[in-house]
């Protein structure tokens, strides 16, 4: 397996795996504590519309998907701020409609026959240098936002009503969290595919939440646990010639099962 590391595409896959894992650890934590898991799933599926649009217009896939995902996030932000109790309906809507638009756009693109499965289940072995730059810059932006506005984001996530009373612009930070989530979902699609994104954003976070005393700690642990799962999943996928995205998710699920078992045994002792 060591000789595999000399291949450029494997190196790209490993770097992408680490970058995406760290980003999804941080953003996944925010998504879980803000109870936006379903929302993240909706944005992930809606971004398929962006993939279809990029294919149709001949744009870079990342650009199309990012544009669509951010638009979906902003739409949800505007719709849910007024009618919070109907959030689930709106999410269900963008979830299905976004995908449908993507399928239709691919249909009407003349002579296009690239395997769309790679967007559904990930294609980490096909990461380009440009993809890596995009992922690196996004991770940098996420880390910078967390450093500068950690206390505001913490306040908005923990108790948004009180944060508003203390003069924090709740709407701004809520929208910021949504946009960063949308962009993280887009880079995670490259690694595990849009169908499996939710698992990548939530399984490591679930484990980290149990061992953390603060949100920052939870973000760090989630990132590290996600990295461990991603690299293990990649190794398994390479060794047994399996789909990488699915391998990463199954390894994560096994890791979660193991963690819960240990947790239970500890409690009994």
């Amino acid at each position: 397996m060591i000789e595999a590391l000399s291949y450029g595409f494997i190196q790209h896959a490993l770097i992408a795996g680490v970058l995406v894992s760290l980003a999804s650890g941080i953003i996944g934590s925010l998504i879980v504590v803000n109870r936006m898991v379903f929302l993240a799933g909706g944005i992930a599926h809606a971004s398929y519309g962006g993939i279809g649009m990029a294919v149709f217009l001949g744009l870079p896939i990342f650009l199309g998907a990012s544009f669509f995902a951010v638009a979906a996030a902003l739409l949800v932000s505007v719709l849910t701020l007024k009618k919070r109790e109907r959030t689930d309906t709106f999410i269900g809507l963008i979830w299905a409609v976004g995908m449908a638009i993507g399928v239709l756009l691919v249909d009407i693109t003349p002579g296009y026959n690239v395997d769309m499965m790679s967007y559904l289940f990930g294609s980490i072995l096909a990461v380009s240098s440009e993809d890596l730059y995009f992922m690196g810059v996004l991770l940098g932006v996420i880390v910078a936002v967390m450093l500068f506005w950690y206390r505001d984001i913490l306040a908005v996530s923990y108790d948004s009503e009180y944060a508003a009373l203390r003069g924090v612009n709740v709407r701004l930070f809520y929208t910021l969290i949504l946009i960063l989530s949308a962009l993280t979902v887009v880079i995670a699609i490259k690694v595990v595919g849009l169908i499996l994104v939710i698992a990548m954003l939530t399984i490591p976070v679930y484990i980290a939440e149990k061992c953390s005393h603060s949100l920052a700690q939870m973000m760090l642990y989630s990132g590290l646990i996600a990295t461990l799962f991603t690299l293990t999943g990649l190794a398994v996928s390479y060794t047994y010639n399996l789909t990488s995205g699915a391998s990463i998710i199954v390894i994560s699920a096994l890791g979660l099962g193991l963690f819960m078992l240990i947790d239970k045994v500890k409690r009994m002792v």
Partner: protein
Amino acid sequence: MGVIDVAHVSFAYEKDLVLDNISLTVEKEDFLAIIGPNGGGKSTFLKLMLGILKPNKGTIRVLGKEPSKNLSSIGYVPQNTNVNTDFPIKVIEVVMMGHVGSKRPLFGYAKEEIACAMGALAQVGMEAYADHKIGSLSGGQRQRVMIARALCAHPSILILDEPTASIDVAGQRDIYELLKALSRSVTIIVVSHDIAVILEYANKAAHINKTLSYHDIPNKEKSFLSHIRGQHFCEVELLQMLGSKRSRDTSEPKNQWRTTP
């Protein structure tokens, strides 16, 4: 001028008038209890004082300014602090949410802010729990932390919405003893259903049910109330007693509602 001056305030959600021509002056040394039936407009009144809502008619002044321009002078303890207990956040971080974000460092929290938060925790007797996860505390302890959060910005007024709703009886006494101690330096306004306890600790009571009526609670009445506490009057009976007192009060001219103590 009082600490809070409410003059002829009316408020309606859509077309339903919730508060009708409310006037009230809260003095510096007051411990005011706001009571009244559910749906009577208590929470709406709180939101108006906090500047979350704006009155349709009339004015509200907090230390002479509009409520929303005086955020740091009011400490607020919201209702039901038992939500979101899984959230990974330390007690000290919750308390530091109370700082108003004007003078703050580039990253994280300033040393003075941490010291100030520890001071607020010490005031409520919770400094030993600063690094505990908020979810590991009992309901009463968590309520103390929320009071510390409200005290963090050194407010001159503390407003609490049903502070003892989800706490056991012993914990409720502790919270009110704490509020009584705090009331020496801070004006306190409490919304509560817990009439017996409120009347024992408060020196003023405002009954809100669309309109407002105002009572001083002289010491004589307090001892009477603590006497009947032993016999365990139910709250409905106490409410009825207050209601009958109210109808006597409202028949008197308006300017005599408030008799200076």
